């Protein structure tokens, strides 16, 4: 709070008309939410009760309260703070969200109730409120804001912000997963997206960004704590935990792939084979009746063996294919992925030795047991039951933590620098003495190792392994998680993996259009935001060779980030 107190809140002595219109809009919005929206109780989680807002009405109340906050901010209610956020831009996004939301609600009532005759006045009050907000906020001038980098908040404030942020994430996730109704879930997504955009527009996220940059370790620990606590919010229910474990397996595999693609810059289209190799080794060494390897070592040994077999495959695939570059590498890895799939499909005694049980796969893999802890049982912790999937979830969380550590530490080391150099200019890197071949091979083997680890757990979690789980489309999905989230970053991959695994589960009603949207998404991403949603800055630069402004901005941020750290040291 050093620079922000320069000008006091005297810029708006008199409420302007647009301010008043917006205020009225906010008021109507909130009032409408306390009225009934529809006669039909079965619709959208029962909106038929006056003075007792249902779920989606609460969304709108939150929007209203946030709008009120922005309005008061403009009035200078919080001295010194109005320079920090651009309330006008925030209000605009908020009001558009509210309007879009309400229009959708009206449409849903019209279609599902069916007929608008079933709509109650409340819905229209809120709709009018939203439109008034649009009318008011779009005539509001934007405020100049200060650059967050230049402001240093007291550390306890920063920490509080982080806690608040993570808590919101936890509850948001728990709430989203709890939504069974596809329409409500979609509306929730719209609400969430609108909220995020509004806050981003207002500049809040650049604050978060700066704070996060300064407190990276706190964020990491906090995020891990949130992830760790997630199963405790599920009350022993397996439905969401099952999805959560799948997201984790997918995310950890994608993180492994991100070492190959994001860090070393090698496009691997057959990566799922490494996950498959791990899973198959683990399955063949399990006590399943269909397992064809007699030796049954303890699981921890199996994990290591799976990982080693995978990375050996990585080496085999890597060593010849690294001679070819670019697109060729991509296609050859794809061919290798197919060879893997076909091979496990064939090794059933009919064609080749009886190892993998062919297209039927190896079913009936027993639950994991580490020591006396059986992963299939429900365990009670502090009176909260934790089911089968929660157990696997914790195990996978540990694996994810390992992979994240490996990923970030490799990235910030001599090896990481070597990879960047190779990506930037392979010839120059070689001329500077970087072991290009070795580093590429290491990326392949290392990534495969991690995937093998994840695979060995996946086999038990899935109860069976079959070849059709390891097809090209899965590799494409993994790649898409990285592309969508952002190459070379942990957070990006986690976001990408979550979006790609969670949305199809929750949006069953669009299940048929899932792949179609997926394909379109890839094309659009490459066209408009090739670096992904949460890109590593370097990757963003690589995709925007000509963007000098971006380079300047990133450089400024980098210098800002580095300087105080060195000052402290």
């Amino acid at each position, binding site marked *: 709070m050093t620079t922000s107190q320069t000008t006091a809140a005297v810029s708006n002595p008199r409420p302007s008309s647009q301010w008043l219109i917006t205020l009225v809009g906010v008021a109507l919005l909130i009032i409408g939410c306390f009225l009934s929206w529809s006669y039909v109780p079965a619709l959208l989680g029962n909106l038929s009760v006056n003075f007792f807002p249902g779920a989606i009405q609460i969304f709108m109340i939150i929007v209203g309260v946030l709008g009120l906050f922005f309005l008061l901010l403009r009035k200078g209610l919080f001295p010194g703070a109005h320079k920090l956020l651009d309330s006008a831009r925030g209000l605009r996004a908020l009001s558009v969200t509210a309007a879009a939301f309400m229009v959708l609600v009206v449409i849903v009532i019209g279609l599902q109730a069916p007929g608008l005759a079933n709509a109650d006045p409340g819905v229209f009050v809120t709709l009018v409120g939203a439109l008034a907000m649009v009318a008011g906020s779009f005539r509001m001038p934007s405020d100049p804001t200060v650059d967050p980098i230049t402001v240093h908040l007291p550390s306890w404030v920063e920490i509080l912000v982080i806690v608040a942020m993570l808590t919101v994430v936890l509850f948001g996730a728990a709430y989203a997963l709890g939504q069974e109704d596809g329409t409500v879930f979609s509306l929730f997504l719209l609400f969430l997206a609108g909220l995020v955009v509004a806050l981003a527009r207002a500049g809040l996220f650049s604050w978060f960004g700066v704070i996060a940059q300064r407190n990276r370790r706190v964020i990491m620990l906090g995020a891990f704590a949130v992830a760790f606590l997630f199963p405790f919010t599920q009350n022993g229910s397996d439905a969401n935990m099952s999805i959560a474990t799948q997201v984790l397996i997918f995310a950890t595999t994608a993180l492994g792939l991100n070492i190959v693609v994001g860090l070393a810059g090698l496009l691997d289209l057959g990566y799922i084979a490494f996950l498959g190799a791990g899973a198959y080794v683990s399955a063949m060494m399990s006590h399943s009746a269909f397992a064809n390897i007699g030796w049954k070592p303890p699981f921890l040994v199996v994990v290591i063996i799976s990982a080693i077999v995978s990375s050996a495959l990585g080496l085999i695939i890597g060593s010849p294919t690294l001679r070819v570059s670019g*697109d060729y590498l991509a296609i050859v890895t794809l061919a290798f992925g197919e060879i893997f799939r076909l091979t496990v499909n064939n090794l059933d005694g009919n*064609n080749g030795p009886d190892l993998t049980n062919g297209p039927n796969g190896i079913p009936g893999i027993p639950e994991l047991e580490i020591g006396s802890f059986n992963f299939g049982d429900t365990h009670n912790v502090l009176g909260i039951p934790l089911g089968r999937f929660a157990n696997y979830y914790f195990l996978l969380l540990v694996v994810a933590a390992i992979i994240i550590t490996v990923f970030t530490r490799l990235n910030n080391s001599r090896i990481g620098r070597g990879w960047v150099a190779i990506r930037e200019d392979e010839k120059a890197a070689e001329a500077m003495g970087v072991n290009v071949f070795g580093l590429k091979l290491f990326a392949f083997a290392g990534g495969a190792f991690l995937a093998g680890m994840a695979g060995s757990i996946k086999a038990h979690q899935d109860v069976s392994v079959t070849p059709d789980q390891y097809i090209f489309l899965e590799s494409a999905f993994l790649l*898409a998680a990285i592309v969508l989230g952002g190459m070379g970053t942990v957070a990006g991959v986690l976001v990408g993996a979550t979006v790609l695994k969670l949305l199809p589960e929750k949006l069953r009603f669009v299940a048929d259009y899932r792949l179609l949207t997926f394909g379109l998404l890839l094309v659009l991403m490459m066209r408009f935001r090739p670096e992904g949603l949460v890109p590593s800055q370097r990757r963003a630069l690589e995709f925007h060779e000509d963007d000098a402004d971006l380079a300047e901005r990133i450089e400024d941020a980098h210098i800002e980030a580095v300087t105080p750290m060195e000052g402290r040291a």
Partner: protein
Amino acid sequence: MDQFLQQLLNGITLGSLYALIAVGYTVVYGIVQLINFAHGEVFMIGAFGSLATWTIFFKGQLGLWVLPFMIVGAVLAAVVVALILERVAYRPLRHAPRLAPLITAIGISVFLQEAVRLFYPGAKSALPFPQIDMVTGPAFQAGPVTVRRSAVFVIGALVVCAILLWFFINRTKMGRGMLAVSQDPDTARLMGVNVDRIIAVAFAIGAALAGVAGVAQGLQNSNIDFFIGFMAGLKAFTAAVLGGIGNIYGAVVGGLVLGVVEAMAVQFIPGTFGGSPWKDVWAFVLLIVVLVFRPQGLMGARVVDRA
């Protein structure tokens, strides 16, 4: 020996199909150094275009005279889709890092597959392809070798297309322009060659041949489904690399070699690693071996490394 000849014929038939598709990879690659990963889907679209033409206009007709219309339908569908792809998806990315067009191509592949699966009536499972009487009737017997009529069509299609292509490239101005762009696009522009148009033409040629291949596949296998593009595309790419990507005749040779290798693998690889289930594995192993030991392919077009 009889079996050898029979399998040779089977291989050449299969290979002709690969070759027709492979030309599309190689023509586009030769000019923009882009692996149009979605080319397999263009082939699939061709097959469906042909089926749609038949269903809409000629349903129930199985005379030979329908075939040209079906081919036109296939070629039209494939070419239109390919041109849209080029314009909308690839052209804006021409100067982007190489990863971008490749991922775009994957996205397009998935999109096209799904679009056909969802919006083509009945395409959720395999669809029977019209069995033109003359082309699918009883087999000919040439000595010990049984010759399917559809095989005659497939091989014939390749021969005709190869001749037309040769004529186009060597005897027309547009063809010369294409050769020039493939060797040095900048200089070609200095000669007055409209590079954008040439690239579009390359896509169109590849698509047209893929469309013919779509009809061929339908007649040969008696059915098509929305997923045929993936494997066919991968095999055709293998064929293109095998022959030396960028070299059109290489693609033809590569396709034929690949087809024969697959057929022979089914018949002659002894023990449990032979047989139909392994033939794809051998095809891909061949691809990797060629890439590692002779990256320029059999016909030796120079691999352009735009690192």
